[in-house]
C-alpha cells in the first residue's frame, strides 16, 4: 500500500516555483507515495511571521498540524523553511502541555480543530534517503544519472538547529550524497553545501545576500559540478533566479544550473521533461543534462 502523507508544498512551490510542485506530484506515485491535499493550510510564515508575531506564528502552524492529525497522517514537506517552522511549532507544543492548551483555546475560539500533538513533519529528502524511500527507489530500478556530476546543496534550515531538525549531523550531512550515488550520479563535494543561500535577506539586504550565495555557488563551480541540487525552493530562488544578479554584484561567473531535488529523481526515473519544466529555470540546465544524455 502506498505511504500516505498530508502534503504541504508551501507557498513558493505552489506559485513561483510551480515546477517543483508539479514534479513532486508526478514523482510520488512512482515511489509509492500518496500525497493528500491540505486545502485549508496557511503559509507557515517562513520565519517572518514568527519574527513579527510569535504567538500568531505558533497558532497558525499548530492549526496546520491539527489538519494533518484530522487526516490521520504525518506531514510531508518539500521546503527547508516550512520544515523548520512546522517542526519547531510541533516541538514547542509537544514539550509544553500548557502551551498546547493555550494554543488550542485560540484555535477552538476561531472554530478550528484543536491539536493533540500526535503528528510528525518529514521533509521528502528524509523520507527518500531513509529505508522506505531507498527501497521504493530500488524497486523502481532507476535508469540512472549517467555519471552527472551533482553538487548537493543543503542550505541551513533543514540541518540547523539540530535540536529541532535532528535527521542527520548538520556538519556532515550525507542524505543527498546517498541519493545521488544510488541514482548513478557522481557527488561533487565542497565546503559551502550547508552555508546560507542568503534568501531570507535577499530583498532587504541584497548585496550581503549575494555575498552569502557566492560561497556555495563558487564552491560548486570549483568542485566542477555539472549541476547543483537543492531540497528547498527558497534556496532555489536565491541560487537560480537570482544567480545572474549575484554574478553581476560579485563580479563572478558561476553558470551553475540548479535542480530541485525531485527533478533530480525525476531525471533518474525517466519522468516526462514537460512536467519538470526546466524552461522555468533562469540558468538553463538543458546543456548539462544533454551532455549527460539525460534529456
Amino acid at each position: 500500500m502506498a505511504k500516505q502523507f498530508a502534503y504541504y508544498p508551501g507557498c513558493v512551490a505552489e506559485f513561483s516555483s510551480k515546477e517543483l510542485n508539479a514534479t513532486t506530484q508526478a514523482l510520488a506515485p512512482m515511489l509509492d507515495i500518496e500525497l493528500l491535499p491540505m486545502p485549508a493550510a496557511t503559509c507557515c510564515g517562513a520565519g517572518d511571521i514568527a519574527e513579527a508575531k510569535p504567538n500568531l506564528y505558533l497558532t497558525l502552524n499548530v492549526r496546520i498540524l491539527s489538519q494533518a492529525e484530522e487526516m490521520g497522517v504525518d506531514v510531508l514537506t518539500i521546503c527547508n523553511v516550512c520544515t523548520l517552522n512546522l517542526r519547531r511549532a510541533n516541538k514547542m507544543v509537544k514539550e509544553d502541555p500548557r502551551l498546547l492548551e493555550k494554543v488550542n483555546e485560540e484555535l477552538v475560539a476561531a472554530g478550528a480543530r484543536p491539536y493533540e500533538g500526535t503528528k510528525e513533519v518529514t521533509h521528502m529528502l528524509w523520507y527518500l534517503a531513509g529505508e522506505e524511500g531507498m527501497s521504493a527507489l530500488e524497486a523502481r530500478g532507476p535508469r540512472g544519472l549517467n555519471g552527472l556530476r551533482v553538487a548537493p546543496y543543503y542550505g541551513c534550515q533543514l540541518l540547523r538547529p539540530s535540536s529541532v531538525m535532528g535527521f542527520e549531523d548538520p556538519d556532515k550531512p550525507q542524505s543527498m550524497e546517498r541519493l545521488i550515488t544510488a541514482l548513478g550520479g557522481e557527488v561533487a563535494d565542497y565546503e559551502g553545501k550547508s552555508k546560507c543561500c542568503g534568501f531570507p535577506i535577499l530583498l532587504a539586504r541584497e548585496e550581503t545576500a549575494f555575498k552569502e550565495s557566492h560561497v556555495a555557488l563558487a564552491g560548486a563551480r570549483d568542485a566542477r559540478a555539472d549541476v547543483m541540487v537543492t531540497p528547498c525552493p527558497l534556496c532555489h530562488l536565491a541560487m537560480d533566479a537570482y544567480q545572474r544578479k549575484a554574478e553581476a554584484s560579485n563580479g563572478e561567473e558561476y553558470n551553475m544550473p540548479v535542480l530541485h531535488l525531485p527533478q533530480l529523481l525525476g531525471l533518474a526515473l525517466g519522468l516526462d521533461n514537460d512536467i519538470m519544466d526546466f524552461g522555468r529555470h533562469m540558468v538553463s540546465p538543458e546543456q548539462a543534462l544533454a551532455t549527460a544524455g539525460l534529456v
Partner: protein
Amino acid sequence: MPATTFDVFRYQPDSSDTPYRQEFALDHSDKVTLLDALLQIQDEQDGSIAMRYSCRSAICGSCSCKANGRTVLACMAQVEEIKEADGSDTIQVDPIGNFAPVKDLIVDLDPFWEKFRSVKPYLIPDGKAPEKERIVSKEAMNKVYNESKCILCAACYSECNSLAADPDFVGPAALAWGYRFAGDERDGQRKQRAKLYSGEHGLWDCTRCMYCNERCPKGVEPRDAIEKLGGVAFREGVSWGDAGARHARAFLVSVRTGGKLNETLLVPFTNPVTAPLDAPFALQMIRKGKAPSPLPHRIKKLNEVKHLMKNVKEEV
C-alpha cells in the same frame, strides 16, 4: 591510554607573517577535554602555543576555538567524543572564524566588544531609583532567562553567515544582550532600543543560518532572541523604517487576505523605492513564470485564520 594527533593552526607574527600547521602526538587520559589536551601539549611539548583560557569550567567564555571545523568551548569539548563523532584520531584545532588571528588560537576580539557595547547592554529604567530594590516576578525574569546565560565567548560569531558577508553586522550575542534588556520589564527604553537595533547592520541583517543556535555552548539561542527583538520592533511601531521589517509585514498582509504568501507583494513592499527601477529583472521573472498573480491566494476556512489574526495576542 588513548593517543590523539592534534593538528594545530599556528601563527607567530613575531617570527613570520605566514601561518602554518603543526601536528602534536599526545598520549592522554580518556576523559580529557580539548583544553586540557592543549595545556598538556603546551606543558610537555611546546610552551609557545598561545591561547586564551581561564576558568576551565565553561564560565569565563575565553577558550572558544574550532575542533574539526566546529566552534566549541575547548573546556567543554571531550577529546574522545570529537574523535568518535568524526571517526578520526586526528583533531584539527583552529581559532574561531570571522575574527583576525593575533597569535595561534588567539583572535582580535575588539570588534566583538565594540558591538557588545553598542547595544547598551545594561538596564536603563525610567524615572528615579526606588528606595528599595525593584521586585521582578519569576515569570517576567524567565522571559529573558536564555539571554541571561550568555558568557560572551563569541562562539556564535565564529560561523555566522551574515557576519562573514557583512563584517559590520552587530551579530548574535550583542543582539541577544539587546533582548536581555529590551525584554526586561524594568527597562524603560524599549522603543529606543528597538530603533537602535533596527539600523543598517542590525537585527534585520540576520540571514537565519542558525549557526549561532547550533554552536552556542550555553543554550542562549541568539537567533531566537533576534526573532523576539523583531517582535519588539513591531509592537513598538518602529517596523516600517527597515526593509527587513516591511518584508515581514508583506507576510502578514498575505496571510490575512488569502492564507498563503503572495510573493508578488514581497518586492514592492520591501523596497518600494528601488523596486520599479528593477524592471528588467522583474520582466525576466515574469517571462519565466516566477511572478505569480498579485491577487490573494485563498485557502479554505479562511475565516478561521482571520479570526486568529484578529484575536491572538502578543506579549512582550
